[in-house]
């Protein structure tokens, strides 16, 4: 059965994929459908959805178009989710690979280091990091990456530990391949499936984290993100439900879609490995 056929067997995953594609499409089309800056104050404040033609989702506290914000926000949320996950992978995969492959003291040392990061509550550490670096897309991405790499390292380490004594790895060692080649060519490709699955969930978590940071006022003030929109609408939630509803719903949908896709990938890539995810 082809990969996609296995993926598509999970109906939830298919729905998730469709939602995700729609959101990506939104992000791509935003500059064409809404060429104006989403910050532009274009109408009376607090227009409810569809009250005035051309403002499908209404306007916010300052008369900015909510629909424009949602469209442009898709780009920001996805970008932050993807980049921070990439950075987290770039930290977690090598550390986990080295710890898992070499074992012994190296492993002990790296795992203590990882545990250390896990001892500080994630969200607390993220807040402190963003506050210290001052809120900007870069600092948010870095903070999210710094708090989310430990599970990657642990997963990769566990995979490496279980794979490093696989017979094909030992065979590779016996024929005289170098450690580097073994790590990169023999083991790493076989750990990709669980990493991909974890990564799809991390993107979702990163989007949630960004929105929580923005909610506390620690977002980048120069970009319109969904988290920012909820944070800004929070004070008017009583008089203008749609201001926090739509971006909240957008986050919900995106995170949901990513989770569904993650589950689908999990089913399609490693039917037996799902248990090793924690």
């Amino acid at each position, binding site marked *: 059965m082809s990969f996609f056929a296995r993926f598509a067997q999970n109906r939830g995953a298919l729905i998730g994929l469709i939602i995700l594609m729609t959101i990506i499409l939104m992000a791509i089309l935003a500059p064409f459908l809404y060429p104006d800056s989403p910050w532009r104050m274009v109408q009376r404040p607090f227009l409810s959805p569809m009250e005035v033609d051309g403002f499908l989702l209404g306007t916010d506290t300052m008369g900015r178009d909510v629909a424009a914000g949602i469209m442009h926000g898709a780009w920001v949320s996805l970008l932050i989710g993807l980049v921070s996950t990439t950075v987290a992978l770039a930290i977690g995969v090598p550390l986990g690979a080295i710890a898992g492959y070499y074992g012994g003291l190296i492993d002990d040392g790296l795992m*203590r280091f990882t*545990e*250390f990061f*896990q*001892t*500080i*509550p*994630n*969200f*607390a*550490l993220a*807040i*402190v*990091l963003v*506050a*210290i670096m*001052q809120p900007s897309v870069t600092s948010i991405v870095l903070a999210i990456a710094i708090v989310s790499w430990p599970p990657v390292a642990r997963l990769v380490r566990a995979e490496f530990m279980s794979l490093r004594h696989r017979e094909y790895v030992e065979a590779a060692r016996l024929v005289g391949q170098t450690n580097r080649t073994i790590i990169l060519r023999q083991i790493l490709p076989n750990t990709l499936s669980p990493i991909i699955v974890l990564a799809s969930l991390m993107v*979702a978590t990163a989007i*949630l984290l960004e*929105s*929580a940071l923005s*909610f*506390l006022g620690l977002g980048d003030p120069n970009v319109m993100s969904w988290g920012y929109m*909820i944070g800004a609408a*929070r004070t008017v*939630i*009583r008089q203008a439900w749609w201001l*926090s509803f739509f971006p*909240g719903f957008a*986050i*919900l*949908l995106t*995170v*949901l879609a990513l*989770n*569904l896709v993650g589950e689908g990938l999990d089913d399609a890539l490693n039917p037996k490995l*799902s*248990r090793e995810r*924690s």
Partner: protein
Amino acid sequence: MLYARLILMRLLKAVVVLFMIVIFNFFLIQMAPGDPAAILAGEAGATDQEFLRQLRERFGLDQPLYVQLWRYVSGIAMLDFGYSYRQQMPVLDLILARLPATLLLTGTAFVLSLALGIVAGSMAAARVKKPSGSLIMALALIFYATPLFWVALMAVVLFSVYLDWLPAYGMYTVGAGLDGFALILDVAKHLVLPATTLALFFMAIYTRMTRASMLEASQQDYVKTARAKGLSPRVIQRRHILRNALLPIITLAGLQAGQMVGGAILTETVFAWPGIGRLMYEALMQRDYNLLLGIFFFSAALVIVFNIITDLVYRLADPRIKEGS
């Protein structure tokens, strides 16, 4: 005896980790722009150099960094966490005053999420591929995907404002002068919304984990053995599948319990719950270094305690580990 030794060793390790955390956080916080003196001066609404100099000298901020670090670390060794100049109280007093509230909130949310998550997860596992099972999982997924603060806001609007069933904020009714059972009831009422909100996300995690773990366990050979004995599905589900499925959940719960302290920052802020999560956010914003460091220390200590408890529970649940083989 085994436990006593285990706990002792774990505590020793914890001391090392905590020491590292103290040092790490100390330097981390030094990197933040603006020192406490500048903030206090800023808040005062008027300031001059003399005022700043007084404050800095008083907080020891005029000393070189290593002296500050040494003072702080040697203070902690004697359980002296310093003084919060912003709040004009010893840090330890501030934290101890707030800690019970956080423990109550996170503890309740933890128990709630774990209990409900396991129940819902087992139900979903028993109803796999049935609409009711899918419904449970869909709900869990939605709880998982919904931002915590958003649920909190919605809960306030719905239950406090429109329905007026539950208090929206605080830990007890101020000025009511309640005591005894009435006070307990009052606190319990205040606890419902924040604890439920905080629990939802984690409940979703446990539900999914329980289901996956139970499905996994139900594939095991011993389940087939149990069926071959003629045991009823309920007994198999409970005694054989669930018990084994709980092991990975214990591990996960231990990890997540620490994260709850982080989640408490949002919950405590929205619901005005007087705990250390909120205190931490305020301390950070006010550059209340000593207080912030103290809270980090305590939350890390909490995480470590949770982990030790998890280990002990795991040991109780899994005889294989006790024997050390």
